[in-house]
């Protein structure tokens, strides 16, 4: 075995070990120190998660829906924004490009504290609407930046060609731009979805404890140290994210196959 193969295996192990360990941990029963292996195997973690009285599955589905809506809104904002930044010349364009990254530079806590006051005035704290809106903010820099790079690389000549052939702005977007940038949209969408799905603090602040997302139920277990349940929750977390990304990619491809 040469050095390359060894390196590949080490890196793979380093990447997969935490996940494997998490799966392993989620199935373990009592596991006192100093034993290398758990003394028993237990489904306690999963039974807890799937027990209807804990409402965890319901919260998971709610969370998924919430993050999907956030993803959709964020993409809907990022797409025209990136398009404008890529293809139109206007004053202050470069400043806007920098300002876009503010939500990443300024800690989200600080941003959310400020927005919290505004949301109280608007009466949308403790509501799904408020949580959705606050989740959109950290996603936008990623959405715009990913799409902007693709637009700048791709240019808009092909869109102009579609216009020449008589397509309206909407038709160009629907039949040309979106199908061509679909792989990028899936990537951007995945990133935005994960960002939204993993938000804990800003959900807690704007949701006021009334809007419970999956991340919110995860947190107390991390603090209390029930590693079995925490691991089971985390495994479900990972599976749900992978499943959503996989399914949305399939679905989107299928929809667009019929368009073309």
């Amino acid at each position, binding site marked *: 075995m040469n050095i390359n193969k060894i390196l590949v295996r080490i890196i793979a192990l380093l990447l997969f070990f935490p996940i494997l360990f998490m799966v392993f941990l989620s199935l373990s029963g009592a596991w006192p120190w100093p034993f290398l292996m758990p003394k028993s195997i237990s489904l306690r973690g999963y039974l807890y998660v799937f027990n209807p009285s804990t409402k965890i599955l319901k919260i998971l589905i709610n969370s998924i829906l919430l993050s999907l809506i956030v993803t959709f809104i964020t993409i809907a904002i990022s797409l025209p924004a990136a398009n404008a930044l890529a293809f139109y010349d206007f004053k202050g364009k470069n400043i806007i490009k920098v300002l876009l990254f503010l939500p990443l530079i300024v800690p989200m806590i600080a941003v959310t504290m400020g927005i919290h006051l505004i949301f109280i005035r608007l009466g949308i704290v403790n509501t799904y609407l408020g949580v959705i809106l606050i989740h959109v903010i950290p996603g936008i820099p990623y959405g715009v930046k990913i799409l902007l790079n693709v637009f700048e690389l791709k240019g808009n000549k092909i869109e*102009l060609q579609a216009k*020449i052939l*008589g*397509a309206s702005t909407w038709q160009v977007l629907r039949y040309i731009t979106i199908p061509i940038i679909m792989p990028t949209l899936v990537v951007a969408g995945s990133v935005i979805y994960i960002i939204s799905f993993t938000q804990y603090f800003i959900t807690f602040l704007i949701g006021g404890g009334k809007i419970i997302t999956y991340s919110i139920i995860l947190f107390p277990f991390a603090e209390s140290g029930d590693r079995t349940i925490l691991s089971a929750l985390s495994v479900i977390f990972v599976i749900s994210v992978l499943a959503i990304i996989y399914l949305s990619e399939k679905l989107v491809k299928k929809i667009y196959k019929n368009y073309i």
Partner: protein
Amino acid sequence: MSNIKIFNVYKYYNGRAVLKNINLDINEGELVVLLGPSGSGKTTLINGIAGIISFENGEVYFNKDLMNNVPIEKRNAALVDQNLLLFPHMTVYSNIAFGLKMRRLDKQIIDKKVKLLIDLMELSGLEKKYPYQLSGGQAQRVAIARALAIEPKVLLLDEPLSKLDKNLRRNMQEFIKELQKKLNITTIMVTHDLEEAFIVADKIALLIDGEIKQYDTPANIYEKPVSKEVAEFFGCSNYIYGKVENGKFISDVGVFDVNVSNCQYATYMFRPEQIILGEKQKNSLKACIIKRQYLGDRVNYIIDINGNKLVCSSNNKNLNIGDIVYISLDFDKAICFFE
């Protein structure tokens, strides 16, 4: 199909005029070639006609309709870009049908039209192929078919053949010319290739530095250029400088009978093929070959007459450097510039 009128068009980039006082009248069914070196403003002009850019000044009419404020998608001026810009995610069929689909035409009508175009453009059997599966010539024909599908008022071709190899290019030139005549569609084509312009054009508009220097038939623009600049664009020319007195042109090369009035400074221009090498005759001039350029079908000889260097092109390939030859100059066919 329509006639196109371009009136007094100016275009500026960063304060620099790239198009100056452009006026063009194009009749219905004509194929006009915009010819010029790179950077002369050809693409800018054709983009302006398509509506991709707007002109600072001037008017564009299709028939009698002013197009200045008509958006791209409503102009019905089909531009075929040099990069073709086929939609990569669509089949040949969908590419051609695109413009019709956007107009929400009936599916059967679209199908009929697309099939007609596929036959016309010799694309049968490729309907289900994607652009990346096509050869250069096929992709070219799809791009043109897609443009023709919308029955444009004017077909605009922006160096459409520049990416094809030479043989394919000749075929496509013939193809475009025949197609254009068959459909009688007003066409504007941009090229920097002289030969291509001569093959396809009904009229050539020569664009240099953003100005139309001459707008005429291929024969006229080559044989009767209005200025030295135009003449020089169409290849190497010989100039003989002198003055005209009492029907005689007096120059370093010799004294010749000409049919023009007196003039202090006159310049006669001869194309290389207008200088005829031959036997010694009454009016022939003695010259010495000082350079020889072999070009395959002909040879360019650079000859010296009394210290003046002239280039002449001949089918006679047997002459060598140092040979003494006799040339005759036909001043009636030469072009004369008075300054």
